[in-house]
């Protein structure tokens, strides 16, 4: 098992390197990107002197390979450069904001799993029943709703009107409720649909028919044979869903002014704070890859076939 875990982790390193390269190309190599976005971004052109200082500081005038070498060198020692706006090292900036984002994402995912998976499973046990119809309608609606609009409605109803939760800000668990529910609604919908489809497929599989022919009660058939197989199928799609979750987190954090990496990313983009933007993207991707690797390893624990292929 360990060998597989080690190999799987090893395998995600090239992806990290590739992402770092893409980020470097996006923000430092494309000549136009920095200069143009700085000078004529419609918020009042910056005067030439400030542009010149930034170019100097960014070392835009050095040849590409020099800048890339410096970039990689810094990355190796986790030095993500200094933020234009706050003059702080980016890595420090990120460290402060990492935990709130992790809290939000994990809470949202927890909420989605705790409600979505059982909902999908029960719906599959009685296909065509009331629960099946209701859960599938809520699922497709959950997929179709714009997160920030849903958040806005929740904020209006539960915060402004009922006052149960704060409209925004960061503090105890009650601050976390609305943002987590907002972020969790689409993974919940996806999980419910995935679980339902997986459960339907497994209950019609040949080995479940064999289990029944052994004289097992339906409940035991489900417990001993169906649940684990459904878990494997759901788990494999869980990894991917974390990706879209990270993307949505940016919007939800901005809506609830949640002091996480997402809102930092958006603010940095507006302030043309390139090192901070690069740092945020790299961290988000790293977080996603770590989670994905853990999910794959969890899959390998449950499903013996993965270790052997």
């Amino acid at each position: 098992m360990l060998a597989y875990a080690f190999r799987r982790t090893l395998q995600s390193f090239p992806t990290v390197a590739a992402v770092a390269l893409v980020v470097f190309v996006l923000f430092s190599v494309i000549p136009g990107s920095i200069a143009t976005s700085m000078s004529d971004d419609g918020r009042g052109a910056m005067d030439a002197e400030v542009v010149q200082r930034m170019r100097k500081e960014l070392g835009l005038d050095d040849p590409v390979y020099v800048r890339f070498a410096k970039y990689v060198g810094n990355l190796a020692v986790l030095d993500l450069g200094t933020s234009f706006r706050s003059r702080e090292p980016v890595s420090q900036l990120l460290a402060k904001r990492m935990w709130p984002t992790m809290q939000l994402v994990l809470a949202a995912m927890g909420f989605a799993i705790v409600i979505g998976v059982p909902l999908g499973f029960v719906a599959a046990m009685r296909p065509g029943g009331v629960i099946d119809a209701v859960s599938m309608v809520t699922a497709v609606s959950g997929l179709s709703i714009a997160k920030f609009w849903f958040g806005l409605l929740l904020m209006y109803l539960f915060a402004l009107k009922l006052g149960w939760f704060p409209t925004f800000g960061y503090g105890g668990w009650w601050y976390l409720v609305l943002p987590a529910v907002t972020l969790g609604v689409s993974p919940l919908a996806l999980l419910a649909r995935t679980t339902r489809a997986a459960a339907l497929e497994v209950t019609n599989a040949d080995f479940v028919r064999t289990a029944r022919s052994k004289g097992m009660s339906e409940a035991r058939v489900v417990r001993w044979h169906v649940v684990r197989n459904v878990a494997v199928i759901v788990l494999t799609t869980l990894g991917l869903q974390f990706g879209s979750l990270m993307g949505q987190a940016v919007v939800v954090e901005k809506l609830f002014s949640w002091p996480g990496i997402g809102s930092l990313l958006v603010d940095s983009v507006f302030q043309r704070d390139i090192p901070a933007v690069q740092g945020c993207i790299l961290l988000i991707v790293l977080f996603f890859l770590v989670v994905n690797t853990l999910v794959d390893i969890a899959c390998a624990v449950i499903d013996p076939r993965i270790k052997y292929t």
Partner: protein
Amino acid sequence: MADEAGQSHLGLHLPLNREGRIAEGDPGRDREPRDLTLSRSAARTDPGSGPGQALPLSAGGEGAQSSNAIAQADEAALLEVKDLVVEFQIAGPFLGIGGGTRVLHAVSGVDLTVRAGECLGLVGESGCGKTTVALSILGLVPATRGAITIDGMEIGSRGSIDRRRLARTVQMVFQDPYASLNPRQTVRRTLVDPLRLHGTTNAGEIEDRMADMLRRVGLTGDHADRYPHEFSGGQRQRIGIARALILRPKLVLCDEPVSALDVSIRAQIINLLLELKESLGLSYIMISHDLGVVEHMSDRVAVMYLGRIVETGDWRAIFERPGHPYTRGLIAAIPDVFAPAGVAADKVRGEIPSPFDPPAGCAFHPRCPIAVDQCRAPPGPELRRLGTAHEVSCWRAS
């Protein structure tokens, strides 16, 4: 999710099952229990009693048939396969990082010849390489070593293949009628496109050749504008045969052409194939795991085991005086209501070894009822003469 097990890195995706064995023509893997194989019965012991009296096929009866095949022996063979070796490098998991690359020995040194107007039966179980040999002849699978010449054209491991000329020389009929026709194409397009591709432009001629071919396979003109889902399994197989013959090839490879069909219509396709062989002067390689079908259709037979030919010869020699223990095992394995006691001794035991590491010496020794030490030690036996037009690769064959 991990990469597909045994996914080979070559142009063609070979359906490998978990153990890396090529699930080619594997008797039942993709075949629903739709057919009723009658593999062997009373005739073996008391010949004349079969209830139905079949009509004589060729006027000359059995004798004449095989003699003219031998008379053409001196002509250059239509197909010549010399020491064909096909091996696949199967990358380990994670694109070879961490996992070792394993070598799959699909075909390990096969020699074959097919003369004009002859039907060569290729018999063997899953993993023996019979479909890989066929695919190599069609140029769909690159040969690792060895030479294949068809009608003077070289398709060895080197050099590019003149696809167009090859298409006019050798064609193939596939096993599963439900996967051998493009569901989105009418019968007309399936037959007409190849003609246009190969230069027939005159619309009248195209229409005539299509109608003629449909008639030959027992269908009519008004089937032309229908889609595959409107046909039964047997009819689809007929369309597959029509497509294989539309370019007037000399050699047709039939990969288990009847094993996926309902039994009661199997005889229709067997008779059709034999009639077309006569009327169009075709040569066949008939690949099957069903000895009854192979005996009925073949002039010569080659028995394959784990990538090698273990016995080859005239059909009468193979089925009446089988030399190799594996051939005897295949014959003994056919369930028979009146199985004579003697046959039980020939039964073959154990599992088919994996083609990733074939056993040393004679590859059959782990399952052979008469294996001795000599059989276990490399090198394995070579094909040697056992009688007129009868060769066997076994130290102990008599």
